[in-house]
């Protein structure tokens, strides 16, 4: 998707920030009509529709109204400043100045804070530099490259299978009807019944035989309890229990209460692993919705699979080569944005910088 340069201010013969919101949207629409066609034009028009429903962004772009900074800081650190502004931050670098490291630090710090980040640029080539240096750890999905989403999904599925293996193993004893755990629980209850009966007999006819029977039943119950305790290990916290009749009864009651829940969980983890073992396009939509970092071109952010996505932070790399209408496509999907690049006439960076307060801009030396 090629970047088309539109100078809104000059095209309309006036400074865009002096327009009202309605005029501003109309001038954007006119610019799109002149400079884009087909899918690109439709994507930008959709973004303008969404802009109309985003009062904060519309006020910033059309009237130069910036949000009050929530937290003032004396920090001179560009990364901290970029992360702190509530709306938009401009990171300006003259040609030849390396800004990639600063952009990456902003992304890394935001990801560390648990933010969901969208990284865009006018072209896939401009994204390559950033993507190749992204930190390991966060889930990164690049939607401008065919097959990348499927590759990440397959990788995630493999990781799920590896990491859920212990959950599955631990719950294995609770799976089935009757499960081995349920069989053991039944055995525990039977031996406790025997122990109670033998105890009763001891009260009426105290003989060495009845005492021995009571003792043996209790020992058998204790063995069952130990086995059940092993089956609970790694699944739920194993309660403290004692090897007397009352302690064993309490433990059996506890296991009886847990059994339906653990049986359900055992079935759930088995299904989940079966699901993870087969290729699934169904996961793709969710991966895009929940990934830490999504990377695509500015216009790529308007593709249907991004329709309902939203992000905590947008980074527009090479924003000096992106028009306002193009930049809108990712901007309407994010709560905050960092525009990085060399301010060129007619670009979104140029447009925003014209009225950006000092707190919302930084020049890289």
């Amino acid at each position, binding site marked *: 998707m090629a970047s088309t340069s539109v100078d809104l201010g000059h095209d309309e013969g006036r400074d865009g920030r002096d327009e009202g919101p309605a005029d501003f949207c109309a001038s954007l629409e006119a610019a799109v009509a002149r400079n884009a066609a087909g899918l690109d034009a439709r994507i930008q028009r959709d973004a303008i529709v969404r802009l109309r429903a985003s009062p904060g962004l519309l006020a910033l772009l059309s009237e130069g109204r910036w949000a009050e900074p929530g937290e003032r800081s004396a920090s001179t650190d560009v990364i901290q400043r970029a992360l702190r502004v509530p709306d938009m931050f401009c990171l300006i670098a003259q040609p030849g100045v390396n800004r990639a490291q600063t952009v990456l630090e902003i992304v890394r710090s935001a990801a560390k804070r648990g933010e969901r980040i969208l990284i865009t640029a006018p072209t896939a080539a401009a994204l390559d530099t950033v993507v190749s240096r992204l930190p390991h750890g*966060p*889930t990164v999905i690049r939607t401008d490259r065919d097959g990348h989403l499927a590759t990440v999904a397959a990788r995630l599925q493999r990781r*799920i299978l590896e990491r*859920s293996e212990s959950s599955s193993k631990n719950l294995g004893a609770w799976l089935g009807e009757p499960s081995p755990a349920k069989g053991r629980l039944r055995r525990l209850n039977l031996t406790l019944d025997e122990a109670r009966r033998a105890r009763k007999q001891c009260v009426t006819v105290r003989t060495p035989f009845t005492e021995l029977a009571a003792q043996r039943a209790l020992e058998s119950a204790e063995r069952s309890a130990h086995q059940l305790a092993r089956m609970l290990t790694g699944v739920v916290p194993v309660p403290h229990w004692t090897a007397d009749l009352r302690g064993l009864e309490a433990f059996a009651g506890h296991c009886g209460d847990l059994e339906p829940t653990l049986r359900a969980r055992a079935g759930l*983890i088995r299904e*989940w692993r079966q699901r993870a073992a087969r290729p*699934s396009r169904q996961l793709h939509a969710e991966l895009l*919705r*929940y990934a830490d970092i999504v990377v695509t071109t500015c216009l790529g952010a308007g593709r249907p699979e991004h329709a309902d996505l939203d992000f905590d932070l947008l980074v527009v790399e090479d924003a000096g080569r992106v028009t306002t209408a193009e930049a809108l496509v990712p901007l309407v999907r994010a709560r905050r944005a960092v525009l990085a690049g060399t301010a060129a006439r007619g670009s979104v960076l140029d447009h925003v910088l014209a009225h950006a307060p000092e707190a919302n801009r930084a020049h890289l030396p």
Partner: protein
Amino acid sequence: MSDGAHLPLREVTRRVEALPDVRPLRILPLLLPMWAAEVVATVRESQPYDVLDRYLARAIDSGLLDIEELATFFGVEPAIVSRALRFLAGIGHLARDDRGRLTLTGLGRRSLADGRRYQLFQGRRLLLRFDGFTAAPVPYSCSAGSVWLRAPELTLSDGTAFQLVDGGTALPGDAVAALLARDDLADFTGPVEPVEAEQHGTRPLWLPVYLVECEDEPLVFGRALDGPDPYLARLMVSRPIAG
């Protein structure tokens, strides 16, 4: 009116002739009196679950209640679990109980039980349609693809004139409430189910249909179905048509 307003008579004739064991006597183009209640409603829309959202909801239902626990159980990164939970909370499926633990809401439980991801939307304007004879709601299968006229007149470009059927009655004031209380509400509203509705008006509508009188049972053709519409046939039972 153009032919686009309804099937032309020749098309209905062709369809009738294609039916086995049907001996038509005559075909009558009719306009049936109907009602439309205009409501502003909170609606429940349903979508299929994705993957993780459904499994997470099931796990929460089985007592796994925090992010770390869920992440370990499923073998998924906590950040992904956290965002998926945020998504479920955002569509009203999850809440925190008074001890701060995750819990499924009524909507979440119902979604899980039905295997469909429901979401509530407020302020939707809907038209709920009722027949003009018995004030019973019109099934979605008929209302969705039918032609609805605001005036009791229709003449197609081939000259077919539709004759108004008399005998319409007023729409009772509680018709909308009675519809919303039905267990089979979705049969009448389709995938967008109103759960609460405020009625803003009522207006008459007319439904053009072809009544095909046969040697046996009559058939009725509307626009919504390719073949005879059993609902319309039931509606027309015991309504003798003059002529």
